[in-house]
């Protein structure tokens, strides 16, 4: 089974007080720490598990600069066989252009399965996987929480709205957007990552992919980024933990929760 996994390096933001940069169209990124996108971490783990259990070959793909190779080396350490970085140079790209580039690279790999994360932690658009499937003309399943490969396809478990699950059969080749929780991604040690440097990591320039300017032009542009305005209605409870707990209970009951 040949598998390609699309991964992205994203900033770690959960504990950070984000600030808007001078242009007002992005956040200040200078001090941010970068990691592999959480969903992509599950996707690469799923690919490696499929390889370990059913044999196969895994290629990790990312679009970005040299710094982004870090996530590829992580993927290699986790068990991917090779990695490809597409260098966009100074090009600005939106989700559509990203998916177009990815499709061009992945087309040549002749994969049975292409995995992406459901979404990326930075922009939360959740659209690259779907558009990638469209460009490749392949079947797509979104928010996948289980994959069981069979002879020419796979049984796929998909998370629906309202807490429902759906079981679908897809035939290969197919694109799946992987949901968090599908597996337990492994830890790879720093030494493991460094040793993975011996594995193949190919760099492709975006201009060598034969895409037209139209293919790469942005169809969506950010107008403004701003922090949500502070609103009224927050209530801070003070006192010792016991009193605070009683107060919380009283408020919850008051709001009509049956406890």
């Amino acid at each position, binding site marked *: 089974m040949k598998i390609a996994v699309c991964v992205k390096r994203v900033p*770690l933001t959960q*504990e950070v007080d984000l600030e808007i940069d001078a242009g007002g169209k992005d956040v200040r990124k200078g001090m941010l720490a970068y990691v592999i996108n959480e969903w992509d971490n599950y996707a690469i783990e799923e690919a490696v598990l499929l390889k370990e259990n059913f044999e196969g070959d895994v290629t990790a793909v990312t679009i970005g600069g040299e710094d982004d190779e870090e996530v590829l080396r992580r993927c290699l350490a986790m068990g991917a066989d090779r990695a490809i970085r597409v260098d966009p140079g100074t090009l600005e790209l939106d989700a559509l252009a990203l998916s177009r580039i990815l499709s061009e690279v992945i087309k040549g790999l002749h994969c049975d399965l292409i995995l992406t994360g459901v979404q990326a932690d930075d922009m939360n658009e959740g659209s690259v996987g779907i558009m990638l499937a469209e460009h490749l003309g392949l079947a797509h399943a979104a928010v996948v929480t289980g994959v069981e490969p069979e002879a020419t396809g796979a049984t796929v478990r998909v998370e629906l709205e309202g807490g429902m699950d759906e079981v679908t059969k897809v035939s290969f080749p197919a694109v799946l957007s992987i949901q968090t929780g599908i597996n337990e*991604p*492994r*830890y790879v*040690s720093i*030494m493991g990552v460094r040793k993975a440097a011996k594995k193949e990591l190919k760099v492709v320039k975006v201009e060598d992919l034969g895409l037209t300017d139209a293919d790469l032009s942005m169809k969506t542009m950010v107008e403004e980024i701003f922090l949500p305005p502070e609103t009224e209605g927050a209530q801070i409870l003070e006192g010792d933990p016991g009193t605070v707990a009683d107060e919380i209970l009283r408020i919850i009951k008051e709001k009509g929760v049956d406890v």
Partner: protein
Amino acid sequence: MPFVHPAVDTYLGLSGYVYGWVIFVISLSLFGFVIYQRYQILDAAQPDPRFSSVVRRVRDLITYGFIQKRQPRYLWAGVLHLMIFWGFIVLGLRSVDLVMQGLGLPLLRPVMDGGFGRVYGILKDAFELIVLFACIWAILRRALVRPDRYEGSHKGEAHLVLGLISFLMITDMVYEGSGLLMVKESGAWLPASRTAAFFLREASVQTLATIHNLSYWLHILTFFFFLNFLPLGKHFHIITALPNIFFKKLTKGSIKPARWGVENIEDVETLGIEKFEDFTWKQMLDFFTCTECGRCSDMCPANAVGRPLSPKMITLKLRDYGYERYPVFGTSRKTNEKNKNARIVGDVITPEEIWSCTTCGACEEECPVFIEYIDKIIDMRRHLIETSRNPKTFNQVLMHFEKTGNPFGKPAAKRADWVRELGDVPVRILEEGDEVDVLFFVDSFGSYDPAVQAIASNIARGLQMAGVDFGILGPLEVDSGHQVRRMGEEGLFQFLVETNVETFKNIRFNRIVTTDPHAFNTLQKDYPITYEVQHYVPFFLSLLESGRLKPSKPVEQDIYTYHDPCYLGRHNDIYDAPRRLLRSLPGLKLVEMDRSRDRSFCCGGGDIILWHEIEQEEMRMAAKRITMAGEAGANTIVTACPFCMIHFEDAIKTGGLEKEMRVVDLMALFLSTL
């Protein structure tokens, strides 16, 4: 000897000397072969430089090997052992003499027949009785008292060996006693031989001669059987204990590198213990040397709360594995069916055992022969990390350490935010090129965890009151890596070390003072730096003793007890400084817990427990420790480690003991009196 030596006699037409030589040659060949086979294990092992500081090693060998200072920590067992050990030392000469007589090489006779011999004869006779008495006592003790710590040990072997030793004593007594009767000699005070003679007093000359010869040959046969039996089991320690003590670890609290003698750890194929040969030769020698006394497990706090860890069983299981892999007979290094596919880390030693250890060092402090456990545990953890078999809860924590320099994933930019709480106490946040007297290394918990921030704030206040020129690194500081190294993530630890060392280089300071005993230990022992590093307790004691700080306000009228944090006490021998600091506080009543100082009972630890729950646990270590404090009559437990404080606070709350017990950090208590 005036009577005819048994070897002079003929047996089945052959001279006794022929038998003597046959027994001697066969036994020594066999013994040499077995030792050579055991040596193969050492030879296959990894290197470990243990030849430095020879003077100190010799001194420790005398203290712990010959005087056996650690033995009486378990009083009666220790006394018994000392009796038998010194019996062996004294009677060794006698055995050599007897064997050489049987070979027709009475080289020791001139010495033994002289003045020395007469004194020695009395001494050896006295020791034969002492050893015999000790062996009988030990057999009875094992049969009647049955201490728990022998659970899982080879008890049959213990009885067999005690029996063999007793038999050696008795045969020599009978040999000498029958000899005395035969020559009707009286004079020298020989308590053991005379005792035997008393029982044989009615025997005829003929019978005496037979008994005399028989007891000699039985003695010789038993001696050589015993010699060959030693390397096969736990009594190998009779041969290996002294070397094991000589080669003991000299820097308690440090962790061995992933591989000795390798400059760049990337060159090591796999970190940690994958196969048996990944242990160092000293770790192998540990396996040979374990006496199965079980003091390690008896003192192990993880064991005490029902976690699946017994240090003794770790050694025993690995020794069994190794002996099966390197059998004495048969050259193939195959293992038996059961162990054929067993991985050392995972099957022989389970992950639960490996993660149960708090690295508190109680086992190592107790071991009479200085077996090391922590390095082995960490080496096994390294392999679990390398093969992604760590608890999943570590994944995010380790990622945070790497990306943000702290386990919480909080931005480095916020590392000094805690100083805002200090209000009017100015805290300098150092930058490259700055100069300062004291570099206050706050570490991650002090920087970000609200409970520990309070300790850091108190230290800052104290430093300011004493007029100390100090500063913190703030965003330039990354975690000391104590936890990372003990979780087994060696590569990440090295990364943190490099980052901090680089920062240290660019700031001029005289000494480092830490919030936390763990950071103190790691900076001092695991970092390639030579700066003076102090934990806050000894540093504030020096401020107190130089008169820069004067406690004047009385403390609250409680009964205080001091809990020795493992990384201040056991790993660094700082026991008196905190007590002196405490006694300087006006009105403070201090009681000691049963388990204090080097026998302190770990609170649960400052590493694995923070992120991994050991399910198989009857109670929290901290809860058990709180009970001990109560039994000592205290209602306030003082500690000097942030993690002890966190665990005790938790145990007090979950146990509903707020009225009976409180915990206070020594810094807070000290500050309250200024």
